[in-house]
Structure formats: structure tokens, C-alpha cells
């Protein structure tokens, strides 16, 4: 793990050098009073005062909507033409350790029983520059699910802020090392001139005492508890099925394939879907819906993250970024449910 140094004032130079070659540089920026990850062209557009932006890298690796095929309906046949994507080289700057840990989660599901090239081609072209956390809020719970505010998993480079407002750069992967070499006039050696620009303290995110992960694991494994309607009904009664949690979550990955067009042709698209939507589990043909009330759908979300997903993959179903808690209009707090189940 070698170290170098990046001054914030050189960010514009870095962005211009990278985008000059056709690349896209994505960083947190203020849009209409909120912070989103968007493509930027100068360092001044970047905001550094955030916990996690409203959106995540999921939008880049797995867009909300994309065309996967075009079709034309002729007199005797239907012509279907698959869409091949050629994503540009992308730098994703400012990813937090929680989000970075979730990149592996998306990769697991999109390279599982079918290699989804719409995902893999994008991930191959993306370099993740992580920034360790010096601030947090009470919706953050990374440490409760096994992620740390200075974790390097998922980042190619991990930046740690200094008191002087610059970054100590830790090279995590080979790819990150090549990036630093490519721009070695911008990434300087450790603390230039021997001046000490100390690291800002990493924020302390206390593990939630009321959460016992083993107990949750055991509880969810027991299918009798799955049918314990009274408990889930009570915990999730206020959920109104808006899906905002699902769409903001960096590990949620469900999608729908739909056709849009006229009688003569159109596009086949892959769009985000959410298990929170009423008709997510409606069966074709009969119309039966096994998850016909909202608490059953919310129960699925919890089970998927803490039971089904961990059973299949080593990556995490939940990384504790807290977006679901912040965005929920009725404040259905997943950590409260974790605490309630830990006490069962």
C-alpha cells in the first residue's frame, strides 16, 4: 500500500487531464440545494461537505433505464437488434467506504448465473476514488454491518483528508496504482517539502448496541418466524410502499424488462424495479400475488438483505449507508427493526 498526496487545488487539473482524453469524471456536486454525484468539469464544482450524496454509484453502473434491444415489426418477421454498449472511461470520485463496499454486492448479482455485460462493461471502465469519512450522522450504521468509515474495500484509491484540506492517497489496487502513475505530475510524493499536514481524524461510528447480528441471522433462518405476521405487521405497518428506500439503496438491484413502442417497432428497456411496489410479485396468468400487503413486501426487503442475499453471496446485502433511513417519508428505520428482532 504505497502512499502519495493530492492537493485539492489540483483537482481541476486532474479533471481536465482525464476528461481531455474522453473520460467522464463524476463527483459530488450541489444540484438544487441537494448533493448528487454528477459529471463535473472543474474542481470548483465539487462539494466536500457531505456524508453520502442522495444518489450512488449504482446510477452509473446500473442506470435507472437503458435500452437493451431495438425491434422492428415487419409484415412477416420481427427484427430484433441487441444494443452493445461502449461506456467511456469513468472516474467516480468521492465514494464513501460504505458505498465502495457495495460495489461487490452489485457485481455478485450481475455476474452470478448470467454475465450481464451492461453491468460488467461499465464496471470495467470505472475507477473508484474513495474518500474516508470524517463526519457522520445518526442514520449511518456502517460499523453495525461490518464496514468501517476508513475501509478500502471496493476503492481503487482511498483518500484521507488532511487538516490542511488536502488528501493522503492510499493506493489500494493495481488499477489505482496505474492511475496515479498516469497522472504522476498531479499526485505528488508524501507531504511535499517535509511539512507535516496531518490526517484529519476518522469519524467514530459506534456500533448499535441493540443489534445482535447472530440473533438476527438465527431468527431469519427459522421459517416459522417468517410467518409470524403479527410481528412484521406491527414493525412495518406504516410503510406505504413508495420504493424510495430501494431506489436509493446501493445494493438493491431488481429490474424490469419492458417494451416501449408502437405497432411498428420500439425499444426493449431494462428499468429499475422495487420489491416494494404492489405488483412486483403478481403472477402471470392467474394474477395471484403472494406479497399482497405492504408489510409482506417490507418483510421481503429485510429478508433479502439479511438472509437471502448473504446465503448466496459473500458480499453484503446492506452496507449501512443509511440512505433508506434518511429518505423514508415515514421514518421506517431499518436499524430499529434490527434492534426489535435482536430482542425476539
Amino acid at each position: 500500500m504505497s502512499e502519495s498526496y493530492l492537493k485539492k487545488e489540483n483537482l481541476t487539473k486532474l479533471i481536465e487531464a482525464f476528461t481531455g482524453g474522453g473520460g467522464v469524471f463524476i463527483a459530488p456536486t450541489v444540484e438544487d440545494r441537494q448533493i448528487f454525484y454528477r459529471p463535473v468539469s472543474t474542481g470548483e464544482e465539487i462539494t466536500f461537505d457531505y456524508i453520502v450524496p442522495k444518489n450512488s454509484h449504482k446510477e452509473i453502473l446500473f442506470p435507472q433505464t437503458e435500452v437493451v434491444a431495438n425491434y422492428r415489426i415487419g409484415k412477416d418477421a420481427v427484427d430484433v437488434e441487441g444494443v452493445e454498449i461502449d461506456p467511456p472511461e469513468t472516474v467516480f470520485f468521492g465514494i464513501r467506504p460504505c458505498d465502495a463496499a457495495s460495489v461487490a454486492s452489485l457485481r455478485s448479482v450481475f455476474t452470478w448465473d448470467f454475465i450481464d455485460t451492461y453491468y460488467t462493461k461499465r464496471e470495467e471502465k470505472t475507477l473508484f476514488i474513495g474518500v474516508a469519512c470524517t463526519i457522520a450522522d445518526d442514520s449511518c450504521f456502517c460499523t453495525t454491518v461490518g464496514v468501517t468509515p476508513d475501509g478500502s474495500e471496493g476503492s481503487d484509491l482511498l483518500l484521507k483528508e488532511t487538516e490542511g484540506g488536502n488528501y493522503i492517497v492510499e493506493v489500494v489496487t493495481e488499477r489505482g496504482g496505474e492511475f496515479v502513475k498516469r497522472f504522476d505530475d498531479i499526485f505528488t510524493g508524501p507531504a511535499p517539502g517535509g511539512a507535516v499536514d496531518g490526517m484529519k481524524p476518522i469519524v467514530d461510528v459506534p456500533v448499535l448496541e441493540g443489534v445482535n447480528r447472530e440473533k438476527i441471522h438465527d431468527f431469519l433462518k427459522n421459517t416459522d418466524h417468517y410467518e409470524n405476521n403479527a410481528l412484521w405487521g406491527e414493525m412495518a405497518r406504516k410503510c406505504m410502499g413508495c420504493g424510495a428506500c430501494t431506489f436509493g439503496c446501493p445494493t438493491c438491484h431488481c429490474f424490469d424488462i419492458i417494451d416501449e413502442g408502437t405497432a411498428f417497432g420500439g425499444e426493449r428497456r431494462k428499468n429499475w424495479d422495487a420489491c416494494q411496489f404492489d405488483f412486483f410479485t403478481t403472477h402471470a396468468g392467474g394474477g395471484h400475488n403472494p406479497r399482497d400487503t405492504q408489510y409482506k413486501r417490507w418483510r421481503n426487503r429485510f429478508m433479502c438483505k439479511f438472509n437471502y442475499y448473504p446465503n448466496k453471496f459473500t458480499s453484503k446485502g446492506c452496507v449501512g449507508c443509511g440512505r433508506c433511513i434518511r429518505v423514508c417519508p415515514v421514518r421506517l428505520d431499518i436499524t430499529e427493526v434490527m434492534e426489535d428482532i435482536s430482542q425476539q
Partner: protein
Amino acid sequence: MEKALQDKARELLEAGDVKVVIGYGWNKRKTQTTPVFITDPADVERLVFNPLCVNNLSLYLTRQYKDIQALGKPAIVAKGCDIRTIAVLIAEGQVARDGIVIIGAVCNGVVYRQELWKGELTPEIMPTKCHNCDVRNPHIADHIVGDPVDFQPPDDPSGMVYDKIGALDGQEDGDRWSFWMEHFERCVKCYACSKICPLCYCERCIVEKNMPQWIETSAHARGNLAWNLTRAMHLAGRCTFCGECERACPVDIPLNLVNQKLALTIDDAFEYKSGYDENEHPPLIVYSPDDEENFIK
């Protein structure tokens, strides 16, 4: 006032007719309020009422919440703005007036978003609807908690939402179009706006019909415009400006602007404001022989 609310809730539950009190309670960390469903008289102390009580709880009276209906007859803690929504639900036959007990809460305003609360309710953190409220003393209720207040809203609607509407009205058509397309570009089609709106109660929304797909579900400009305009039109004359759609939107689209513009338009055309009389039907869902025909030239 909280004590009066808790006492009333206990009284109703103990009498046996009301089986659940839908109200506001604290989350575990006591940093934000959240909807609670009290079925046991011993739990009434969980009920609170303060400027963080922003949710429009009338949502839980609507038809799709079958689990809540199964609990039995509800009493609902409602601010004046929430009661306006209940009035429209009654007018549209979704809720029977004698099927619910309304506990009206006298309200001096709430915060625009719970995250803005820093200990004091100042005018800057209150939403526009509070500055123009004429139902701080609940207008339809079975019981009222809180002492009556004397607040006169301005004669003409004023405040941030109306200022912005005025500014948009003054713009050229092309600029207005760009303003909205830029905002709708952010839409991710989560449908949170529709899910939190008590008046979006259709069990199968038009956007969920897929044979054929009338409104595209993709989050591209065309699909987003179709969705947002359709929802606005379906709410025209019905929306009571609770502001929940804008609060729920995860990408901060200023939905109040479009819904309130339509409310002003309906008021101009039909001299109607929704939610004041539970026996009056919103103009776009009825045909009345008295309707003016001055638009036929």
C-alpha cells in the same frame, strides 16, 4: 396539549368503539416523529403532537391499507390540513364519516422537513401551506385537542410556493418548459409522490396498466413528463396542498409548484377550494348543469 390528546385516546380505546388510534410518536432516538398505531390503552403515552408532526396520516384511512382496516374502527389524530384531505376522501366515497373518529389537533404550523428542526419553529423552516393556513383550528372533528388559536392568513396566497408560481407565470413558454424538463429529468420513477398522497388511492394506477402500457415506466424525459403531468391532472381540484409529495420525493422535484398552480386554476374557473366541505364534490369529477360554459366560443 399532549396530555389531553393521550387522555382522549385512552378514553376512546377503553370505551371499546375505537380499536386503533392512528397518530404520531417518536422514533427510538427521539429525533423524528413517525406514524404510530395504538391499539392498547396502556400505550397512549407514545402519542405526541409537536411541530415535527408533518405526516398526513389520512393516508392510512385509504382503501389499500387492508391490514389497518382489519384492526377495526380508527380514530385519527389530524391537523387542519390533514382534515381537508379527509373531507375530500369522504366526498369521494372512500371513507365513511361515521366510520372514523377525527381527533382534531390545533396546530401552529409544522416544519417543512423534519431535518430542519433545531429546537424552534421559525417562519423560514415552515412550509408555505402553514403561512396561508385557515384551518389551524380544525374545521371538521369529533374531538378537538389544544386551545383555539387566532391566526389570520393573508388575503391572497403568498409565500415561497406562490412567489415561484408567479415567477413561472411571467416566463416565456419556452423557459417554463425548460424549467420543468430540467426538474423532471431527475425523476427516477419511484412513485413515492403517488404512494404518500392520500388522494392517489387507485388500487391499480394507470401507470401500472401494462396491456397496453399507457404511461411509460422508464425514467427518460418523455416518460417522466407523462407521469408527472398525469398525476397532476388527476389531482386537479382535489389536491389539498398537504405537501407530502414534495417531501417524499427522493430527488427533490418541486411538486408543490405544479399541484398548487392547478389548484389556483381550478379556483379561478370554478371558485372551489377542496377539503372544506365533505359533502361537496371536486369540480372535475362531477358534471353539474350549473357549470359555466364561457369557454365555448
